[in-house]
Each structure stands twice: as C-alpha cells, then as structure tokens.
C-alpha cells in the first residue's frame, strides 16, 4: 500500500519556519514556491481572474445617467467632488455611506475570519493576488521551483541575464498596468487613456502610475511574503479574531505522526507509523516559506496550497485526503486526544484507525453547523444592520436640500420707512442630474416679503428659480418685515423650497432679528 517509489521526495527547507526563524538583520532567504495543483489552486485561479477582472474592467463599464452627468459606472470625481457608483450618486456630505461600507468591510472581515480563518489573506488580498500573478510570470520564464533555484545559484551568463531581464520587464509592465488601471477610477477612462498615451494627461496621473508601478513591482516581485509578515497589521489582529471553531489550515498530526520516509521498514520493524511520508511537498509549494506541520503560525496566510500538494501525495499513496486540511482547533484537539489516548503518550495512529485501516467512528469532522454560533450571529447581525441602515437611508434620502446662512454682520438693517431687513445666503442643492425649477417660499413672519439679489422682480413671499443639474445654487435673499408687524427681537420662520415636478420639498427654520422694541 505504501509505495514509496511513486512519491517524489523534495529537498525543501522551510526558510521562515519558527524553528529556523532568522534575526531581523539577516538577509531574506528567497522562497521558490513550487507550482501546486488541485481544488484550492483551481479556486485561487478563479478568484484571481475575478478580482483582477473587477479591478481592471470596472472603470470601463458605462452607465447612462442622462446628458448632465458622466456615463462611467464607477467614478470618483474628485475635481467636482462627486462619487458615482452605478445608480448611486454621492455628494461629499453623504460620505457616511462610504464610512458605512468601510464598517461593513471591517465587520465582514471579522465574520469571515471567525468562520473560515484568514480567507481574505489567502485568496482575495491584493498582495496575495498580485504575488500569485508575479509567480505565474516567474514560472513561465524561469521554470518551476528546481529550475528557478538552479538559475538563482548559477553564475551570471547571457541566458540568466536574458531571463532575468524578461522577468523584471514583465513585472514592470504588470506594475504599470496596475497603476494605469487605478487612475481610470478618477476620470473618464477612455478620455484619460487617450491623454495618457498622447502625453497630455495631468502630471498627477503619471505620478500615480509611477508610484503604483513601483509599489506593485517591489511588493509583488521583491518583498512578497515580507509584506504579510512584517508590514501588514492584519496577521497580528487576526489572532484575536480566531477561536477554537474557526477553520484554519491544519496539519493533522493525529494521523500523520510518527512521520517516516521509509514506512515499510518502520512497519517491518514493528513500530507504528503515520500517514506523513515526509516528502516535503507541503513545504515546497508554500509561498510563505513555512512548514505547516509546525502548527498554526503567524506567517500562514491559509492559501491552502499545501492541502493541494498533500492531497496529491495521499492520492498516489492510496490514503484518504486531508492529512493537511481545513480544520477547527476544537476538532483537532478532540482527534489529538483520541490519538494520544487522552494525552498520555505520543501520537499512535493505531488509535484512530480500525484494524481494517479506515478511520474510527469517533473522529471529529467539520460540519457547516459549526459556522452558526453566537459570535458569527453577532457579526452577521451587525453587518446586516449596518447594511440595512445604509439601504434604507439610500432609498429615503433627499435629493433636494436647502441650507440657509443668516447674515451676522449686519444682523439687521433699519430701513427709511422703519421696517427691518435681514439678509440670508440660501443654498439650493439640486442633487439629481436634471435641471429643476425650484420654488422658494417664506412661511411665517407676518407681512414679510423677500427680494433676491440679481433677480429683477418686485418683493414677494414666493419666487421660482432654475437650478442647474447636479449643482448647488446660491441665492442672496433679503427679507423685509414692516415695523408694525415686528413682535419680538428674534422671530423664527421657515424657508421652504418645492419642486412642483417631483413634489419634493425641503424646509429650513431661520431666525429674523430686529432691534429690541423701544430702542
């Protein structure tokens, strides 16, 4: 059953393993991850295609908003201070929607981490995705692990120089494409592309491309796992997010130990032997340079490639998959207790297997029910509550707003007929991309009439004015009240605006100041 000849033993060293962890001032030891294949690798290709697709293609999606607004589906228009996301348009004062989304992202990260561990790190983090992409390039040009190690150790020849030049040039092109895609989120993509190519774009566009090209190249090509280990705060925080029911990539030493490279000899010698043949496949594929068999560790981003590698070996050996698997700490501990007879001795594989070789019934396995626990419900509840609040707020938000600033100097002016005048700056916010006719009306303040600067109309209690699409209109309004109608030094009244076409309206309560009576 345990046919050694089918399994290739790899000379792989876990350069970042806790056992061999280097002091910080030592040079980085390069990692040459071997290509893995299997379910998780397939899934990661898919995630890479989707995430990169979203990143590169989103700015090119169009969304018709009529003649008065840009037709780019996702656009951060910093110059005009507007944010467009498909059917949603956000003004700067509505930035709380973005804050809400960030809160959802935060709580969502807690939810995901508490259930499936560092899935964000392993699958969707831009650092992981781009390093994966850079590794694809490296493998295509220099070959897989052994070829790369050989090339790295070889003296500089024309061939090495050629391969290295091609590799770094390709990385730089990817970096430039990454920075290039970023800028399209901030301006009309087709126009900006034309400007960038013809050299007429704003300097900030080129600077952004240059900076992101540099960071992508350095982070994805040079620093790689060091970004996760030394720069990113999330690996430290996530320790607090995981509990004994969170899934992590786990080496199941309750069935793997004692590991042996020559199980037949060991068995022949009458000793027990586990499933691990110490082939180092899990170490060779690890992009973080660790040995998962040392247990859960800070460096592990749970990319699950070691699961794929080990599953491949187990398949060849005719053993059950899952020597390395996603498992919870609770299940792992239960199985370890079983395998060590309650922790009284070393791992004994015989304790978890029936004489016929299959696993005993008492083994703990992960089932979906474990996802549903109080903690995840709290996260899910908070996440949904924020989401629902945002949706509710979005559906009921006002697209016509009114702000009024009362003149403070002078607070009031006495006119020759004894009447009192107050000045106001009235701001009409038309937050839809269509022109609108807005009626401004005075409510309350007996006998008062208003006149608008720049509008040649007699004083009245109501005015109609045109407001441009998606714009703010500022009116200087003078309100005048006859002397005999003034009741007290400060009177409250309302400015009301109406859009007759959409029957939207808004009100603003303002003060009207007058000198104290008798003075």
């Amino acid at each position, binding site marked *: 059953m345990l046919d050694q000849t089918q399994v290739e033993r790899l000379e792989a060293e876990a350069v970042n393993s806790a056992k061999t962890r280097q*002091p*910080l*001032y*030592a*040079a*980085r030891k390069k990692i040459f991850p071997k290509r893995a294949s299997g379910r998780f690798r397939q899934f990661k290709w898919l995630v890479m295609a989707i995430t990169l697709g979203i990143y590169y293609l989103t700015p090119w999606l169009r969304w018709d908003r009529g003649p008065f607004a840009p037709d780019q589906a996702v656009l951060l228009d910093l110059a005009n201070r507007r944010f467009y996301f498909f059917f949603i348009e956000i003004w700067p004062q509505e930035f709380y929607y973005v804050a809400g989304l960030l809160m959802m992202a935060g709580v969502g990260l807690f939810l995901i981490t508490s259930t499936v561990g560092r899935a964000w790190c392993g699958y969707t983090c831009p650092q992981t995705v781009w390093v994966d992409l850079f590794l694809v390039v490296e493998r295509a040009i220099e070959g897989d692990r052994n070829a790369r190690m050989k090339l790295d150790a070889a003296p500089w020849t024309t061939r090495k120089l050629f391969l290295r030049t091609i590799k770094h040039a390709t990385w730089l092109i990817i970096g430039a494409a990454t920075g290039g895609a970023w800028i399209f989120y901030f301006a009309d993509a087709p126009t900006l592309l034309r400007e960038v190519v013809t050299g007429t774009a704003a300097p900030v566009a080129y600077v952004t491309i240059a900076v992101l090209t540099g960071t992508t190249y350095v982070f994805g090509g040079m620093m790689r796992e060091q970004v996760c280990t030394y720069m990113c705060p999330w690996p430290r925080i996530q320790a607090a997010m995981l509990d004994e029911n969170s899934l992590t990539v786990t080496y199941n030493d309750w069935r793997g130990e004692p590991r042996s490279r020559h199980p037949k000899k060991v068995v022949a010698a009458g000793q027990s032997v586990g499933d691990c043949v110490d082939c180092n496949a899990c170490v060779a594929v690890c992009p973080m340079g660790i040995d998962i068999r040392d247990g859960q560790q800070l460096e592990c981003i749970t990319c699950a490639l070691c699961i794929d590698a080990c599953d491949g070996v187990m398949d060849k050996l005719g053993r059950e998959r899952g020597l390395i698997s996603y498992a919870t700490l609770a299940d792992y501990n239960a199985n370890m207790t079983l395998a060590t007879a309650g922790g009284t001795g070393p791992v004994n594989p015989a304790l978890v297997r029936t004489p016929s070789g299959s696993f005993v019934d008492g083994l703990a396995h992960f089932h979906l029910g474990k996802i549903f626990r109080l903690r995840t419900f709290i996260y899910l509840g908070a996440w949904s509550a924020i989401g629902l609040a945002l949706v509710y707020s979005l559906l009921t938000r006002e697209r016509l707003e009114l702000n009024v600033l009362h003149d403070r*100097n*002078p607070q009031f*002016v*006495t*006119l*020759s*007929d*004894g009447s009192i*005048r107050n*000045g106001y700056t009235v701001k009409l916010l038309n937050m839809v991309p269509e022109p609108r006719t807005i009626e401004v009306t005075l409510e309350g303040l007996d006998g008062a009439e208003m006149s608008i*600067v*720049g509008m040649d109309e007699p004083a009245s209690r109501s005015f109609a004015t045109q407001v441009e699409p998606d714009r703010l209109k500022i009116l*200087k309004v*003078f309100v005048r009240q006859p*002397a005999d109608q003034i009741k007290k030094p400060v009177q409250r009244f309302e400015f009301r605006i109406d859009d007759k076409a959409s029957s939207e309206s808004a009100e603003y309560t303002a003060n009207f100041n007058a000198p104290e009576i008798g003075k």
Partner: protein
Amino acid sequence: MSSEHIDEISGITTTGHEWDGIKELNNPLPRWWVITFYVTIAWALAYTIFYPAWPMLSSTTRGVLGFSSRNDVKNELAAAEAAKAKYVASIESKSVSEIAGDDALREFAVAAGGAAFKVNCVQCHGSGALGSKGFPNLNDDDWLWGGKTEQIQQTITHGVRFAADADTRQSEMPAFADVLQPEQVAQVSAFVASLSGPVKDKSLIEPGAKVFADNCVACHGENAKGNRELGAPDLTDAIWLYGPGEAAIAAQVKAPKNGVMPAWVGRLGETTVKELAVYVHSLGGGE
C-alpha cells in the same frame, strides 16, 4: 581596540564598551535600515545638486533646477493676476451699471470690492458697513447723495466735502445758533422729530413748522424730504446720521457737524472704485 571582544553568552562580538558590567552587542543593523540609510545619503547629495544648498561666499549654489521660492511666489501672483486680467479689463472698459448687470462681472466686482472695502472703508463705515453716528450705514435704503451705482461711484471717487478734490460732493448745513432763538430751535426740532415719530410737547409742532418753512425748506424741501443735489437729508424717515430724537436734532440745528469723506480715486484707481461701488450697491440698499 585591537582585539575583538566576544560576548560569552551569545557569542556575538561586542563594541568593547562596558558600563557597570553591561556590554553592547555589535549586532549588524537590519538590512532595510542600512539600505534606507544609504538611500537617504544619496538622496541628500542629489538634492544639493538639484536645489540651492551649499553656502558659498556671497550666496549659495543655485542648483541645476534653478528653484527659487521667491520666483514661485512671483509666478503664483502673476498667475493670479493673469486669471483676473479678463475681468479687470472688462471692469475698466465698462460702466458700473453694465458691470452690475452682468452676473459674472458682478460676482467678481463684489468679491474684489468687498476685499477693498475691508482694507479702506471699514475704519469709518464698520466691517458690516453698518456705519455709526456720523458715518452712514451703507446697508439701508437712505442715500444722501443717491443710491444708484453711478451715484455711489461718484461719491467714492471724489469724496464728500473733501477740500483737495474740486469735484467733491459739496454742501454745508449752516449753524443756526446765531440765527434762531433757543425756543425756535426747540420748536423746529420738535417739528422735525414729529415727522417720523411722537414728540413730548405737541404744542411746539405748529410754531416749529413755521420756523422750518422760513429757514429750512431751501435745502430740505417743503415736505422735508431732503434734496440729493445738495446732500440734504430726508427728515421724514427713520434714519438719522447724527442720532434720532429732539436733542440730537437740536444739536445739529445749532452747531451742525458736517462729516468729510476723502476722495478715493487717486489712491485706489478707477477700477477699484468701480468694484467698491458695485459692492456697496450689492449690500441691499442700492437703488
């Protein structure tokens, strides 16, 4: 320090320094730190080549980029002037009522005039142009010399009772202390006060009207509505430059104050005066 000091416990060389038995291990610096350190040195040297840096006898090295913060300021100011040039040229060539009739020009003139007002006018008229006793409120609708934009421009240009300007607004309320008897002053003051409000002693009104008709109508008019040609104030409204009430009126009848406003065109130039006129007109009282 010829011989190497080795720390016995860690096996790492020490710097040879010892304080009360504590030795300093000579660990190498982190690579990223060393690299950053060298990069900063290279950066600093390159900076001194590109930017003004090294002190010489009379000045410093100029730097190959020719950077100068003075030039930057000069350029920014020139750019600001260039951006304004279009408006300033229009304001120079157009009349104040044309400026007031053009939305964009008016907005520019109000902003520019507001700035000039804060530097030159607030000392007397106040930051809100509310004025004070003897200094007219520019927000209201009562104008001694007229509230149309052109009239305001004329007043700012040449001033009021400003001797150095031949075209200045000229008028003078004579002192009636020597002409009228004290009771006549009281009577006419009561009459004038009665035109816009109640008075204490109504019996003074009728004789006061006669005094007014004999002495005051030449300038203030038969209906006491004043005369802008002469800068004679309207005495029937609620606005009093030297204060309301019979006492204040009596003081102004006996020994009037005749306020002076300087002519501004020589100091500010015609463009700024136009901007000021449009600004003052926009305060709400403009006619």
